[in-house]
């Protein structure tokens, strides 16, 4: 009773908004859009600058007052970028490492998450807690020993060294296990009664039901290969470098010995465009993955 009374009171108050208040509100809204617009421009500007610079001639790029749009569009910069930074070879390396590590990682993550979510065994909770505890430790701490380990294994400068050490991610196992737990256990028991094998159940029921998470993991894993820089530089030479290594390691000097920024920007654009594509088409999954890791991690 009393609650409904309060509601009618506030609604009455709302109706009494004077014109002065309305003007203040409009000014505030304009201010908000102005601020957000300026911030958005600042955020977008480096991308804009990257793309237009990659299409300029060197002479135009070095003008005292830069032009905001190229007078003459030079596509040749992109061809130069591919030869100077050897992007073709790097691209193949990265795609190979990305695909192999994503597939293997997905298989391991799925069966591990399944074991933690559905099977019963001694010490399950203890083991899972220990796994989660390792997430606290910064990655640099692992890198040092892993460097020694892969040297002992004789894996230096192979594809293996780029794939195997990062196959298991505790975070992905955690993410998928939570997803599996939400699927009612009755489904699993019913399948058992019908004599369905575990793997078939996993394939027919659990994987389709947790597809969004699997897609998130795939995207994050592929982006990881695309963006990894430190580890490949440490353990491989040029033949097995990934795309980011080639990007920064290449020399973009022109005949006069000065950095040819348009070509450099062309290389940067080539590396950035696949990321933009992923972002445009799969934004939903990325944002979901990030915000989930944010709130629960």
């Amino acid at each position, binding site marked *: 009773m009393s609650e409904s009374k309060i509601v009618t009171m506030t609604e009455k108050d709302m109706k009494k908004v004077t014109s002065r208040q309305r003007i203040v509100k409009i000014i505030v809204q304009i201010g908000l859009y102005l601020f957000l617009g300026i911030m958005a421009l600042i955020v977008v500007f480096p991308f804009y*600058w990257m793309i237009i610079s990659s299409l300029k001639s060197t002479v135009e790029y070095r003008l005292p007052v830069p032009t905001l749009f190229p007078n003459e569009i030079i596509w040749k910069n992109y061809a130069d970028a591919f030869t100077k930074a050897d992007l073709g070879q790097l691209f193949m390396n990265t795609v190979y490492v990305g695909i192999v590590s994503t597939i293997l990682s997905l298989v391991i993550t799925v069966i591990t998450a399944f074991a933690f979510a559905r099977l019963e065994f001694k010490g399950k909770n203890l083991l899972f807690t220990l796994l989660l505890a390792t997430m606290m430790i910064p990655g640099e701490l692992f890198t040092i020993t892993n460097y020694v380990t892969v040297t002992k294994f004789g894996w230096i400068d192979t594809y293996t060294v780029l794939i195997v050490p990062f196959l298991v991610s505790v975070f992905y196992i955690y993410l998928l296990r939570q997803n599996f737990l939400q699927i009612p256990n009755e489904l699993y028991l019913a399948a058992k009664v019908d004599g369905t094998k575990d793997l078939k159940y996993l394939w027919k029921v659990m994987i389709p039901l947790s597809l969004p998470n699997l897609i998130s993991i795939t995207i994050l894993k592929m982006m990881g290969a695309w963006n990894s820089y430190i580890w490949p530089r440490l353990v491989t030479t040029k033949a097995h470098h990934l795309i980011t290594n080639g990007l920064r390691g290449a020399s973009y000097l022109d005949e006069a010995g000065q*950095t040819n920024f348009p070509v450099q920007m062309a290389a940067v654009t080539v590396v950035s465009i696949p990321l933009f594509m992923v972002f445009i088409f799969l934004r939903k999954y990325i944002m979901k993955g990030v915000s989930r890791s944010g709130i629960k991690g």
Partner: protein
Amino acid sequence: MANVLNKVKGWFVNGFWKTFCVAWIWTLLCKKWIWQDFCVNLLYKKFDKWKAWLYLAPAIVLLLIFTVWPIFNTLRMAFWNKYNMLQEIGGTLKFNFGVQNFVDVINYQRFIDCLKTTMILCVATVPISTFLALVIAVCLNAIKPFRRFLQTIFFLPYVTNSIAIGMVFEAMFNIVGYKAIMNPDGTFSHVSVGIINNIIGIFGFEPINWINQGSGYWQNIAVLIIYIVWNALPFKILILLGGLQSVNKQYYEAAKVDATPRWRVFTRITVPLLSPMITYVVITGFIGGFKEYSSIVGIFGEDMQAVGGKSLNTMVGYIYDSLARNQQGRASAAALILFGIIFVVTLINLYVSKKNTHY
């Protein structure tokens, strides 16, 4: 024959405890009922128990090699005086306990410089980016049309390659052209400009040598701060906006009825209700800040300094440099120091936020 006998005898004497263990396990296994139980379990009844471990095996093996062993080994290498990987593999090194690695690291001027740079970057970027992200998130939450569009734009820097965009920032702050300026005595001198210098020139500022040869340490740091803040915004906006959208609207309606000023609403309602998200964003910001590395490589190249300038190396950079120079002991000691700092900073943050969290 005598040789073999001697060997067996020596094995029995020296490795007596091993023999004892093996014999004991063997006796146990030989007992008929154990064998039976084991086989039945494996084949028929309780296969499920073993199955779980079968499923877990790949993950566990990989984690043992690449996650669990490193935790112990880092401690071992850090407290092993003059550890060197090549000598250890060669088998010429005996474990030698001591804190020499830590002493070396702390007495090393380069490490102190790295620590200083890292600290400056952390202390500057975390408050700036958190505050900016909070303001943007609140503004985004207050508008209706174009909200999703702007939200997408603000999230754009998240899915970029930090080395690649670092190179774009390098190009933007770089000196690319020469502008002739007439001196009072009639001669001409050339002042360098770039796009950023052009933009600040519009507002009447003098061009600054940001990152080129002869640029100062603080100019370099300023560029890094701008880049790191730009890079850190999207994640923070996403988390804070998510928090804002789950806040109960009733508080704001109550404030509206009381005609509370906007600033008061911000400081008295929004910030306290968002405090868990803010804590989270600050903690992850500090952790990321202490691990800053690739953004510096992106802007300044693999030397991590402006030509002829002071080194801008960070703690993570120091760890990798030591590793590449085969000083794994020092690298481990530095990594443990880094871990300790991150741990302490996180605890302080949690303590402060616990005091200030309002629900």
